[in-house]
């Protein structure tokens, strides 16, 4: 009795199933004292439903056949299996996401600056008369010049500033 209690205690304190399994294999399965504390195969059978207890199973095959037929018909209509469909949807979602990210990056990185900046957004020189300034001097010194045309306007503003 003391032996069984000791073994039972050791079994309980072992932290891993692998260790418990080792104890079971190497001691408890062979020890008559320990086996006494377990229900036998014959006793267990008395508790369990046996093959002879399951009764009539004639309905099983027709219902399986019917379901297999239904699934086959569904399969013909929709030849793709569920996992294949799921894979396809995942791929489609990934492709759409990549396209959206690419579009966003393209928009933010390569967008044109607003046309209200000096000379860049205006009409091309071929379309309008060209304004050219060869040089501007202030106090006999070369000056900084800016030519600015507001959007939708014919006014051209020429700005000259002294170099500091």
């Amino acid at each position, binding site marked *: 009795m003391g032996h069984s209690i000791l073994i039972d205690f050791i079994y309980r304190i072992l932290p891993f*199933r*692998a260790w*418990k*399994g*080792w104890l*079971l*294999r190497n001691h*408890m399965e062979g020890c008559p004292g320990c086996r006494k*504390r*377990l*229900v036998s*195969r014959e*006793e*267990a*059978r*008395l*508790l*369990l*439903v*046996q*093959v002879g*207890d*399951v*009764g009539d*199973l004639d*309905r*099983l*095959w027709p*219902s*399986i*056949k019917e*379901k*297999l037929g239904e*699934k086959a018909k569904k399969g013909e209509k929709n030849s793709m299996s569920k996992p294949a469909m799921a894979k396809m949807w995942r791929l489609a979602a990934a492709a759409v996401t990549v396209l959206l990210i690419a579009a966003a990056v393209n928009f933010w990185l390569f967008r044109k600056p607003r046309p209200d900046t000096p000379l860049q957004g205006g009409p091309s020189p071929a379309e309008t008369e060209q304004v050219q300034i060869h040089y501007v001097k202030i106090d006999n010194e070369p000056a900084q010049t800016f030519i600015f045309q507001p959007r939708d306007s014919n006014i051209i503003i020429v700005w000259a500033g002294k170099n500091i």
Partner: protein
Amino acid sequence: MEDNDWITACLRGNGEEFKKIVDKYKASAMAVAMNILGNREDAEDACQETFIQIFRNLEHFDARLSFRNWLYAILFHRCLDVLKKKRRFRNLTSKVKNESSGRFATEAYNPEEKKQLSQHILKQLSPKERTALCLWANEGFTAVEVSEVLRCSASTARVYLFNARRKIRQFLEKSHGTLDPH
């Protein structure tokens, strides 16, 4: 070898050969399912789903392994699915009943009471313990074979089986019940 011949015939498009597989295993599969699930309707559903799944996945079966173990592994997982669904439903409806123990102490049982006693004792076990016990006692499985069905290590299967056997013994000792078949 017989199983593999039938599987080969099924894969060649002879679906009727599958009936032979169903006929061979339906009773033992049903017994295992009833032991795990505790009622006939759920067990029938689980068996049906299992055979359908097997038919649809026959091409993935590795002929070097045991077909019987593969079948029981699928059945075990279908039964777990049924139990999970039932648990979810029970949680939803909050109708959990705790059946009292002790009613079986030292009574003489008629067959119906014996059945109830068996069900009550089996309910003390986890689904994995019930499966391990059922395969070991009814089918004569070893711990290694049980581990193939439960998809765990042999040590773990041994622990499930040991726990099941010990829990039943303790329950019987506590309630002074016997499992005398006569």
